[in-house]
């Protein structure tokens, strides 16, 4: 695949011939923004992780309970930082007596932080995980 930056001049020329005001291209490394004010086209690029304009999602406790990072029969966490998880997949568990409820990923994405300690009592709505949704997830 070629880099969009190699074709900025061509893209600007095409954009100038339309009534489109903004063309934005985002890759994991950078975002390229072409702004068309009707007379001329200006170019902006943003490098680094903040290029992706998706906010991280906080996954909160769906009920009060004891937060478990791993199933009681297992000695490995269900999801750790850096794991890619599917929408609706359990990231952790809440224990209420013998009952176990899932703390589920609302969207497909990457776990970027675990915000509570295994075995602690958490209240309703306590942030438990930070999830960076995949790009295509937010647009649907």
């Amino acid at each position, binding site marked *: 695949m070629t880099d969009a930056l190699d074709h900025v001049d061509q893209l600007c020329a095409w954009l100038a011939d339309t009534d489109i005001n903004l063309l934005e291209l985002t890759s994991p490394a950078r975002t390229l923004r072409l702004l068309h004010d009707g007379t001329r086209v200006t170019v902006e690029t943003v490098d680094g992780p903040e290029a992706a304009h998706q906010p991280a999602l906080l996954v909160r406790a769906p009920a009060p309970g004891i937060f478990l990072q791993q*199933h009681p*029969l297992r*000695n490995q966490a269900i999801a750790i930082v850096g794991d890619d998880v599917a929408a609706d997949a359990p990231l952790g568990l809440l224990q209420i007596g013998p*009952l*176990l409820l899932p703390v589920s990923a609302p969207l497909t994405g990457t776990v970027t932080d675990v915000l509570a300690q295994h075995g602690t009592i958490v209240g309703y709505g306590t942030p438990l995980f930070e999830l960076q949704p995949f790009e295509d997830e937010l647009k649907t």
Partner: protein
Amino acid sequence: MIEVLSAGALATVQDLGRNGSLNLGVGWSGAMDPLALAAGNILLGNEENAAAIEIPVFPFRVRFARSTVFAVTGADCAPRLDDVPVLPWWAQRAEAGQVLSLSVPKTATWQASRAFLCVAGGIEVPLVLGSRSTQLRGAFGGHEGRPLQDGDAVPIPDPGRQLRSGFGLVPPGLALPFEADGVAAVRVLPAAEYECFTAASHDALWSTPWKITPQSNRYGYRLEGHELKPVRPLELRSHGIVPGVIQVPHGGQPIIQMRDAQPSGGYPKIGTVIEADFWRLGQAPIGSSFRFVQCNWDQALDALAETRRWLKNARRLVELHCSQGGEHD
């Protein structure tokens, strides 16, 4: 219907057992871990006695021919639905055509050897003498009176209503541990011929570990340990016995009668494993050791009440969760 793709060996359909037919010479049968079966049924909104598939040998694989909700309880055998991991002791939805695979149990946190595949509505085999359990000796009950084979089509009902899934239970094996000196233990009532054994035998019974030998199965567990000796040779006529009875044959190495035990025997009985601890024994792997802890009648009843309380509380919380609004998946 569930299609059996890989049956392992000796997987059988079991409910909580065929009680009330000992007078006909028909033993109990039933789940070796009745607590795991009952808990699986609670997760699915079934009656606690609904039939499930008891799986002692792995790998085991089935294909769901219709959509349903299932739970795999008992030993943690890392269930996978198609290629996606499923939590153990978890109500999980399966779509028609999906394949469930179970592998050799992990015993890192709980030494257990048998898994139970429970489905919404229970395995739909005919009742025989009031039970759906497989009676292997008599070759009736369960699925055609025999262990499952590759290619078997096991009938399951249409779940009918929209069932809740996506929640689980903490295995009671973790919530109700019982040990003696750090070794897994079961409680035992002294039996009719207890006093006929030597004092050294009594000491050995209560204070040394007992190993489950490979000559152990659903009929009985042959144990290995200190020799148990009667004060003088004992000859008894055959008499009625029940699962849990610890017999001592001439070699002095005890045998515990398990779920598929025949209903009579003639060896002297030194003790009986209490009903409340039967599930612990049923899950104990071959080669593992455990201890016998003496108890009395009241303690045996208290222990049974404790497991009943656990089940009642689990059912209450599951029903409460399922009655709340929320997504059905």
